[in-house]
């Protein structure tokens, strides 16, 4: 009886305390010596550690900052458009006008970003864009790779960070995973 109770308790504890599940899909490996740009939003000292890991594994790392790849909220506050829409639309439905502006903004934002990626490939000879987000224990560290020749996502991975993982461990794991080694 006691054994059953302990087993049930341990199983429940595992269920409730378990870390999130990992996810991976690799379409084409990104081999060493490829020319890559790594986008990661973290302090410079950590960025250096990450870049050093990629360099150590033989990747040709191009200098690109996360700030070069503006996120939507960084460019400008889209809510400014809300005020503009309402100002210009006392007679019309302001909300509808604002929604149209927003939708158009998303289409144009994605289009401009794709143009910038094309420029990155043509001017700086970057072949792959690598995105990384590193998180603490129990949270998800994630990564993606985009092939700039086909403008297509080729690798996605969610890695639940383990208790004993160091920064180097997680980056090394991601590098070997994306290179299929």
């Amino acid at each position, binding site marked *: 009886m006691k054994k059953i109770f302990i087993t049930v308790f341990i199983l429940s504890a595992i269920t409730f305390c378990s870390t999130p*599940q990992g*996810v*991976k*899909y690799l*379409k084409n490996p990104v081999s060493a010596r490829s020319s890559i740009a790594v*986008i*990661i*939003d973290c302090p410079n000292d950590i960025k250096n550690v990450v870049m050093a890991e990629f360099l150590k594994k033989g990747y040709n790392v191009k200098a690109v900052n*996360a700030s070069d*790849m503006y*996120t*939507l*909220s960084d460019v400008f506050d*889209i809510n400014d458009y809300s005020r503009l*829409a309402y100002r*210009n*639309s006392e*007679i*019309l*439905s302001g*909300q*509808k*006008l604002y*929604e*149209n*502006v*927003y*939708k*158009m903004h*998303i*289409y*144009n934002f*994605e*289009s401009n*970003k*794709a*143009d910038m*990626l*094309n420029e990155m490939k043509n001017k700086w000879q970057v072949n792959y*864009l690598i*995105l990384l*987000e590193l998180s603490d224990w129990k949270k*998800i560290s*994630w990564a*993606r790779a*985009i092939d700039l020749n*086909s*403008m*297509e*996502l080729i690798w*996605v*991975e*969610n890695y639940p960070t383990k208790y004993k993982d160091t920064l180097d461990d997680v980056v090394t794991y991601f590098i070997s995973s994306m290179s299929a080694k």
Partner: protein
Amino acid sequence: MFKKLFFLTLLTFITVEVFSADYTFAFGYLKNSSKDKSYDYLEKVFSNSLVSSFKGRDIDLLRASEIESELEKKDLKLLYEYSEDQLIDLCDIIDADYFMYGSFIPLDDYYVRLVISIYSRNTDELFTFETIGKLETEIFSLIDTLSAVLFNAASSRVYYKKDVIADNSKLSIITNLEASEMNEMYSVFMGSNFEISTVQSTDLENSVSSDELQYFYDLISSKNSLKKLKDSELKKETNFIYGSWMDAAQSQQTKQDNNYINFYYYDYPESKKKALENLSKSTKNNDYLLIIHFNRSRTKSFVRCIDFKTGNLIWMERNITADKESKKKYKSKIMQQTDEIIKHFYLTSSSIPEEEEKK
């Protein structure tokens, strides 16, 4: 005595519950938009045939002739076309949950182009779609297809799907998921041999919130659209007053305002078409733009899909929930939902078995 009365009342409730129709669907006439009057007879044929095709379902049907009699009592006439305000009033007068109207133009070789609108009184949404079919011997198959499309559009899923989404298509996805959740969704699409473009996938953070993604619920394209009428008010026109009393700055400002409203409001379908063409070109051979909105618990989603080649809305569906098979296949709710969405890729409005509404 009381016992009998109780059972009688109970029986009445049960009878009402079992035999009451789910909703009332009213059918207007389809207007002959050609100058050839020899096709006028089709105005009634299309309408009446659609009513007949709906029979056998648990729906109250209102024929155009019945609507006419109802309107005559109030000195009103059944029109071919209705403004958005008139639709609300019409449905109130005839007490219909859905009202269908539209037009047709005969084409060469016995083909016909139909533009059909369905107004939903409960959700205040107007869905319009265009289709081409053949008359003569194939008219019955055209009516069956239209009937299935109308029935699905009037379901709780507000379902419309014109074409299947082919294997190996390249998809641009705009969603409201967090970055790591997006990876879960992408992995299922990629695992099913679909290509994912750079749209949203190159962002460290997803800046499109759930509320903002709701703006994509209604979409307008050249051949079909879903509009929420309360918000749209497209009928109103803005008159900008020019005059000699204006100084140069005022004049310039008015012109800018005018251009702004034209671009984002009156000419919005055209502006959007150009923006999507640019997006498809810069992201290289994109096939479809998918808008996928997940609810907070990630157990339901709505989808909109635009075909980049034609710029048309080819798929709309809401209340998508994963079936047992998807739930068995994946632990993650997002992956279950994505798996379910992929299953719907291969269906069309007229090919799927119609789902009866369960109240």
